[in-house]
């Protein structure tokens, strides 16, 4: 980068001086940053972003996350698929939200609605899919869709009773498998 300035000092004639900006140190910074970022760049099936108000527990698990609908349980609310459903006050969900089966009624409804929409989409895809001979791979994909799993991102300091109630509510809606999002230990 060059900048031209005029200088009259020390000379009768206007002299044009070229000033070179030294960008070597900036290039050094960029190079180090680039190498670091390239090294930490992860190419996985799903990139999870934990909400700011949810501190995930650490775990020795090495299983990579998969894309699925998620429930976030923070110290203030239970969020399903990006929308707050019930409030958490003093580490507890108010008893008024529970139904006679000890499930969280508003959460049960939104999960059931979501699963119904998934089933509808799956049915549409099945109806519109070309008739091809079944292979092992297709069977696996079908199983994965039918599995009805939910990713749970919960604050590590929460009473497990809150998480347990959310799990049982989701199970009541038809969810069969749960994936707890955790922070990999030592990374």
């Amino acid at each position, binding site marked *: 980068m060059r900048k031209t300035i005029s200088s009259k000092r020390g000379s009768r004639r206007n002299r044009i001086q070229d000033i070179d900006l030294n960008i070597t140190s900036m290039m050094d910074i960029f190079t180090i940053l680039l190498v670091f970022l390239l090294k*930490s760049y992860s190419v996985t099936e799903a*990139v999870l972003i934990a909400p700011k108000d949810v501190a995930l527990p650490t775990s020795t698990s090495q299983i990579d996350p998969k894309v699925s609908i998620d429930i976030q349980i923070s110290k203030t609310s239970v969020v399903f698929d990006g929308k707050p459903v019930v409030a958490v006050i003093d580490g507890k969900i108010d008893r008024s939200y529970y139904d006679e089966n000890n499930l969280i009624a508003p959460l049960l409804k939104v999960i059931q609605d979501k699963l119904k929409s998934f089933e509808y989409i799956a049915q549409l895809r099945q109806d519109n899919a070309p008739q091809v001979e079944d292979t092992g791979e297709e069977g696996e994909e079908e199983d994965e869709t039918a599995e009805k799993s939910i990713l749970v991102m919960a604050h590590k300091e929460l009473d497990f009773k809150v998480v347990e109630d959310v799990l049982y509510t989701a199970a009541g809606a038809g969810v069969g*498998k749960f994936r*707890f999002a955790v922070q990999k230990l030592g990374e």
Partner: protein
Amino acid sequence: MGKASDRSRTNKDPALTMFPMMNLMVILVPFLLTSAAFYHMAIVNTTVLTDNPETGKIQDTQIIPLDLYLYLKAEGLTLESSRPMYEGKSRVDFPMLPPGNTYDFPGLRDILIKVKTENELVTTMFILADPGVTYDNVIKAIDHCRDDGKPVPSPEGPPMPRELFPKVTIMRAQ
């Protein structure tokens, strides 16, 4: 005239044009910064045991050779089974460890290794937590049930620890 201008050109210091390189860096660095993962996430698989026949199933198996229950209570851990787990014992208590009143997860893992040695086919653990037990402690319990924590070299990939009871089912404490 021509010779003079040639000479002046050759006298200049050769300069490497860094602008294309800088342009590349300026685009790459913000892109990588936005997609950088400064800590990596993983998942822990579980199921819950309910009355619902569709969802309340034990992971991948309905036949359990030995039923193992791990209770997380305010006063410590309890490992229990309806049948003898190891050396004729069907119940082991792990009181809280001083200082800090923490759960005795290392002690639990030592016993689980013995249980696994006597019951190689068992892979499922039922976990029950009392109210007041934190989610973090439940995850730690699952971690200690999953493997022995001692990675051994594997010819197929990175060093892996020996699996103990990787299939965890959450139960509601009565």
